[in-house]
């Protein structure tokens, strides 16, 4: 939306306002209640994984994910996809993010592993457990990353 902040209802009386001095209480200019001004989150880059992408840069993702919102918020968007097709068709329970929001598409089958990509592959429980173990210290994590990318 390009705005510096949005007002929200809530949060006043919670500790969020203690740890986030940038969340400011403002008066509702059209009513009597207090609101909280939340500064815009502006990611420099969104990396997202899609089911499919087409030659116009449109990408197909899941209706349960927040990718469309993230794609509209980020300065640049790189979408990896399981498949590249000539032209995407609408599908039940999936949404198409228009190519105007996408800077680059990369054909990367398996790009969501070790998490799931529904319809392509399931979550790899064993690999997630290995990751959790490795992530306990910087040293074991560095070794994990080397193996994972090898």
């Amino acid at each position, binding site marked *: 939306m390009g705005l510096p902040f949005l007002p929200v*209802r*809530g949060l006043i*009386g919670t*500790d*969020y306002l203690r740890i986030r001095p940038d969340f400011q209480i403002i008066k509702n200019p059209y009513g*009597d209640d*207090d609101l909280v001004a939340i500064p815009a989150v502006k990611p420099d880059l969104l990396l997202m994984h899609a089911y499919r992408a087409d030659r116009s840069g449109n990408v197909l993702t899941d*209706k*349960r994910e927040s990718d469309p*919102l993230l794609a509209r918020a980020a300065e640049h968007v790189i979408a990896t996809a399981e498949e590249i097709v000539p032209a995407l068709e609408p599908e039940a329970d999936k949404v198409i993010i228009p190519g105007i929001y996408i800077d680059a598409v990369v054909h990367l089958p398996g790009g969501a592993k070790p998490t799931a990509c529904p319809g392509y592959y399931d979550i790899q429980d064993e690999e997630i457990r290995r990751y959790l173990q490795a992530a306990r210290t910087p040293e074991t994590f560095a070794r994990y990353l080397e193996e994972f990318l090898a």
Partner: protein
Amino acid sequence: MSSPHYTPEELMAVLISREVRDGERVGVGTLSPAVAAGCILAHHTHAPNATLAIWRFQEYWPFTEGMKEMFDLGQRGKVDLFFLSGAQIDQFGNTNLVAIGDYDRPKVRLPGGAGSGTLSYTVPRIILFQTSHSRRAFVEKVDFITATNDPPPNVYRRGKFNRCITPLAVLNFEGERPVLEAVNPGVTVQQVVENTGFPLVIPAPVPETPPPTDEELCVLRTVVKEKVQTVYPQFAAAAFRNED
């Protein structure tokens, strides 16, 4: 005392389901398999016209743009019922989903509140739940207030948190002091008191929650289990008894 013919998770799901009224719009957030099970149970028994929005369930996700839509719908006051939990819940009914210990040097960093801090103001009926009833879970004062039960004046708020459902009991945070509203079947008042880290107002006598009915357990172990295991396979394998 004979052991019950249902699991603690099944009991939680049944108690959750009884909170859902027909025709309501109900929101269920992340990592709440017992709540998801309860709402689906309600949908297949007394609340066929409820609209369920359960995070991660394709069949129960009436949106096309992710979690933002549920939060926006809630901010507009159009979610009738929402379920909230916390790693800690205190005597005031405040919840903590952010950090155990000091925020800057936490003993445990928790997942974060997501919609807790906003939905709690605009959803008219909020039911708290706690999957383990212990002194670690029910504390005098939470380490971090993620959702407050008592916001300052001049803030838009629909109401106080309603009851809190646990494997042992039903607590109520609507009044000045927390009340032991009911004990679950086979649980003593003493057990609840020993596992709660703050004093409770104890009516005399304390009512006992009606146990799960055969119908509730049957629907839970068939239709509901089948749907829950698509999103929470490990929970479904451990939580539901076989229907025999």
